[in-house]
């Protein structure tokens, strides 16, 4: 018996053979035995699994023990088996621990600490009232209000008595659980504990609580399904299907837009008073802004009419220079060429010198990526601050206010309007590319596995070996769960070089660099530096692709 147990303990140090349990690096191993220091690169990942497996095995052994010992405790079952009884039966230390541990853990996680604190308070109140009662009896004399007091004291005493019984009743099943089920299944305890820890997500948490809840370590359990069976959309298919889709909400969206359009006079008034307008809310506001432009030009009675310039911030090639030169054309002024800063200054001083020229800027998606740079925003703010320039812009993200510091915000002098349109985004989003990027399938690379094979075929043998080395290292890094930074799992340049030298792939760093350069040119590797300045290499492929490549290279 005892020997079996020690075997189980020993097995903790060994890598698991029987069970491939889900790796949970955050689970605290239950048993005391610490695994031996690991050697291999993957050992750290394996460690928790190992201990877990050991635990499992230990449980198994305990189970069996239980089965064999069973007859002796069953005799005592009728009646209330006290805890000590269970303990006495447990032959091994491990078992004792398991039995005791369960209720304690339950207590802690159940969050019963508050009630227990309350109980303490009650208890002390009860003690006091008991003392009061005794005093009364000893003292004898009872006046009117003292009698009242006594009543209260008695009440407290009795009520807590009842509660105490309730408590006992509650505790009873918990206390009996281990002995009823047999102490051989401490697993039960752990499962209830984990279940208690992650019930269905609590409703109505405030956002920040939600964040901490969802980012709790160990909670990110998702299924292993992937989209490999799904035939992803191509641009052609996307657009041909899109053309046939009829939005059931089209009418409502149109109506919503007309509601927003009713505030055009108000916006015009605000603009005329030196405020700039910023529209936010879900949905594309491009059409709305266009309508507003039409409205403005129809209402404009100033002479000469102010020029309306529409800027599409979402266009990927948007550059400040282009925007500014368009503005220059609109103001009929030849801007000095040069940096955007110089162009702005030239434009603004021209405007100051011709007070009759007014420009109205309508910017679609001022928070789109091309315009997000602080430089662009400060230039736009400078433009907006000029009294002859009016600015209306729309934003698409919910956190657009972070774009501006207080100085820019005050030069923008914005009034904000909620313009939730629900209108579908059209040219603002290149849907297919966006989604594919999101899924990590980038179109611009050499076509995955085949592309790599093609490139490698034209390279010398040691280049192939180096690439194989790289792929192996990256896969190992992936297995370690080291997600690296934005570019996925990465390996250290220095380390790869050393290994390459060890394997006689190259003899000098020069040669190594040359080989890497070739890979760089074909965009089959990427490199970047981390915050410490260490150069890192990574491969822009997903794991299954990498595995396929490695297979190809090995064969």
């Amino acid at each position, binding site marked *: 018996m005892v020997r079996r147990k020690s075997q189980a303990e020993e097995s903790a140090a060994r890598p698991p053979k029987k069970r491939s349990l889900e790796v949970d690096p955050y689970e605290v191993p239950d048993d005391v035995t610490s695994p031996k220091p690991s050697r291999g690169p993957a050992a750290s990942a394996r460690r928790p699994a190992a201990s877990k497996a050991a635990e499992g095995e230990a449980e198994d052994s305990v189970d069996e023990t239980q089965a064999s010992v069973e007859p002796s405790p069953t005799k005592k079952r009728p009646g209330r088996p006290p805890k000590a009884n269970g303990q006495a039966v447990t032959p091994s230390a491990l078992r004792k621990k398991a039995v005791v541990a369960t209720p304690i853990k339950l207590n802690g996680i159940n969050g019963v600490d508050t009630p227990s604190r309350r109980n303490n308070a009650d208890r002390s109140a009860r003690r006091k009232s008991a003392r009061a009662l005794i005093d009364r009896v000893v003292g004898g004399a009872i006046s009117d209000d003292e009698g009242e007091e006594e009543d209260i004291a008695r009440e407290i005493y009795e009520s807590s008595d009842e509660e105490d019984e309730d408590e006992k009743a509650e505790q009873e099943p918990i206390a009996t659980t281990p002995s009823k089920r047999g102490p051989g299944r401490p697993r039960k305890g752990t499962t209830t504990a984990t279940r208690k820890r992650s019930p269905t997500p609590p409703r109505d948490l405030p*956002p920040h609580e939600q*964040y901490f809840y*969802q980012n709790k370590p160990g909670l990110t*359990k*998702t299924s*292993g399904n*992937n*989209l490999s069976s*799904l035939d992803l*959309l191509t641009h052609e298919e996307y657009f041909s*299907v*899109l053309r*046939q889709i009829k939005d059931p*909400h089209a009418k*409502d*969206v149109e109506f919503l837009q007309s509601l927003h359009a009713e505030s055009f*006079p108000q916006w015009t*008034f*605000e603009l005329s008073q030196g*405020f700039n307008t910023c529209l*936010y*809310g*879900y949905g594309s506001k491009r*059409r709305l802004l266009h309508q507003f432009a*039409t409205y403005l*030009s129809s*209402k404009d009675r100033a002479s*000469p009419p102010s020029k309306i310039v*529409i800027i599409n911030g979402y*266009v990927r090639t*948007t*550059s400040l220079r282009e*925007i500014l030169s*368009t503005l220059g054309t609109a103001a*009929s002024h030849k801007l000095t060429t040069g940096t955007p800063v110089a162009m702005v200054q030239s434009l603004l001083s021209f405007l100051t010198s011709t007070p009759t020229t007014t420009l109205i800027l309508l910017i679609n998606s001022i928070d789109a990526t091309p315009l997000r740079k602080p*430089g662009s925003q*400060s230039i736009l703010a*400078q433009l907006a601050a000029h*009294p*002859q320039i009016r600015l209306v812009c729309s*934003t698409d993200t919910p*956190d657009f206010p972070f774009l501006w510091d*207080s*100085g820019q*915000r*005050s*030069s923008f002098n914005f009034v*904000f309007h*909620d313009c939730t349109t*629900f209108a579908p*985004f059209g*040219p603002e*989003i*290149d*849907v297919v590319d*966006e*989604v594919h990027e999101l*899924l990590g399938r980038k179109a611009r690379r050499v076509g995955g596995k085949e592309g790599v094979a093609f490139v490698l075929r034209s390279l010398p043998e040691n280049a192939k070996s180096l690439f194989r080395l790289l792929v192996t290292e990256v896969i190992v890094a992936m297995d370690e769960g080291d*997600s690296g930074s934005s570019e*996925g799992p990465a390996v250290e340049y220095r380390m790869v070089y050393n290994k390459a030298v060890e394997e006689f792939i190259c003899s000098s760093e020069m040669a190594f660099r040359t080989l890497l350069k070739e890979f760089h040119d074909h965009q089959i590797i990427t490199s970047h530096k981390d915050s410490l300045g260490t150069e890192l290499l990574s491969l822009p492929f997903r794991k299954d692709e990498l595995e396929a490549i490695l297979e190809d290279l090995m064969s």
Partner: protein
Amino acid sequence: MDSLDDHIFQEDDHRTAFIFTPPSSDPSASANTTKGTPSRPAKRRRVSSKQQQSTPTNNNTSHHAEHDQDHDHDQDPALPFPPLLSSRESPACTSLRASLFAEAWPALESRIEDVLRGANRSTLEAVHGFLLEASSDGQGCERGGTDKKIPAGFIITGPNIAGQELLFGQLAEELAGGGARVVRVRSGEGVNLKAVLKRVVRDAGRMGEDEEEEGGGRRYLDYDLEALYEVLKGKREAERRVVVAFQDSEAFDNALLTDLVRLFYEWRGRIRFEVLFGIATSVELFQARLLKSKSRLMLGRQFDVVQADKVLESVFKAAVVGNRAVVRLGPGLLRSLMERQQEQVAGIQVFISSLKYAYMCHFYANSLSFLLAGPDKLGREMLQAEHLEAVRSLESFKTHVEAAVEARQLKHAQSLLDDDEYLTGQILEQGSKREEYLLQLLQSLHLLVAMGLHTTPFTELYISALSDGVDLASGDSPVLDNVKRLGPTEIAALIGRLLNAIRDGSPELDLPGWEDDAEDLTKALTEIRDDIEALEQRAKTERNPLKSKYSAQSRVVRTTVVAQKVQLSHDTAKLTNDDKAFTEAIDRLAEVLSRHIQSDPVTSCPLHEAWLYDAKSPYRDVFVPRPGVTFSRALSRPHDYLSCACCKSNGTTAGTLPTTAILYHLYLEAGALINVADLWSAYLALVGEDTNIGLDERTALVQFYRGLGELRTMGFVKQSKKKADHIAKLRWL
């Protein structure tokens, strides 16, 4: 939207920037644009005409120019005010509202500007004085040339960079008045040495250019200080100073500043450079960033700007409380405005903008706001039936009528309700009632402040006076108690202050003195003062200090220890006859004060809706947007916006919702990491062929793509490399 319009726009959607040409439905407008555009540039581009125009408006007048222009625009009859009262408002009323706004705001704005200018006055003068002094000091050793340092003013502006703009604008004006050339550089513009120098050469050189047309002279690179020297060479000593002001010094590159200082120092023999630094933190921190060898080249002094809350208070007094404020801001709005100023460290500009927006809202959206017009513009005929109806539905009107009924003025109440003529008369009278009320309020407040017994800030005092009124006699106010405890000399001084306040009024509040109207008050006060002074005189000769039954000395708490027990006893000192007279005088004073310093809550004024603006929500929506709430509401309950029949929100995720909304619901249910494959199957289960939506897989996939793409654009998700086909959650709204 017709198809033509759509088509035009499709092309433009993919261009970065383009000039909008309106669809040619309005022939006159389009003709105007096509005709106007080509002819204009030729005229405008001529250099000489441009310079003539630019010269006068250059630095000191640019503010006014922009102001005038605003003014012009306001005068524009086509100010876009739509008619109210379900479009039945007469054009006369509409334009009256517009013109009222056009008069009211600019007047107030210029007043605010005066206040702001005044607030920074001392700083400006100190800076100016320092620069003058430093440069004249330097002249003596100019011959030696080597030890002359660059005068440098370090202006501590505080962390609010938005406020710097105004200060430096004023500074530039002030210094330019003294003949110096001022160049203001912001970190955004001064990215490198060349850019800063270009700006210096251009801005400093431009001022004198019209006299300086050299024509055939040598040409310089536009960042060569030699060019500037050429311009300045012939000038008098005082005009050769160039002041370079770095507004947000901390944001500049260290090396750039060092280089500039070095360069300026080297040029000091030819051009007299002076520098100003706007500093948000502290001089020590700033100095630590500069090289020691370079800081040694500067002769610096530190200047502190007036505290922001002081400026705020004076603006508040002038623009909100003062007599010139046409529209009154209600207590609720004011309170939230002040809170925002304190909590969000918003600059004074934000406060002014909010104020302006309140004015705009009032005149734009309140159909009764035209009642603010003076009696000369307001006639009986302007009041339409709709106006009367609107008045009758007002809260203040209702309370007024109810009060009339309670007071048994049934006739009055009856006529108000039935007789349009009578009501019109009453409405037209409200203007004078308003003035009466406000005058009383301001005078009371002014006297309260003059008493000097208040510790609460003035803004707080005003807000509570508006919301709860001023009532000294009520138990809540500690003022009278404080007055009663004062000694005879203090009371005499207090009365003196009150009399002064009545005589002088308050220039801050634009409140003239009202000695003539307050004869009984002044008389009562003088009498009391004379009595007290006489009493005190007598007390002095008798060497018996004067006291009243309220003063602290008269009540002594005595502690006696009797048989190891402490006994407390109140001991009331005997009051002499004089003391009693004094007490009586104090009582009289308290009575006079509580009679004269009083005001009702603003809501008790009938028809206050015509001149009081107290709506918090437009202000909050417009200046403090809450995009997170807006987005999460739109996506989680689209029905709120769309009010469509199909997706009445009942807490479940229906397939009829817009795609992104469905995905958002699923997104909320998911953890920090989302498996796209599962998301897709969940989505398909909601809209797929088995449901009553019945989309086929490819269509559903297109919708799914769209929704996912939108989620990504809105920044809700990003790619995750942790697992294949997983995305990471980025937003918890």
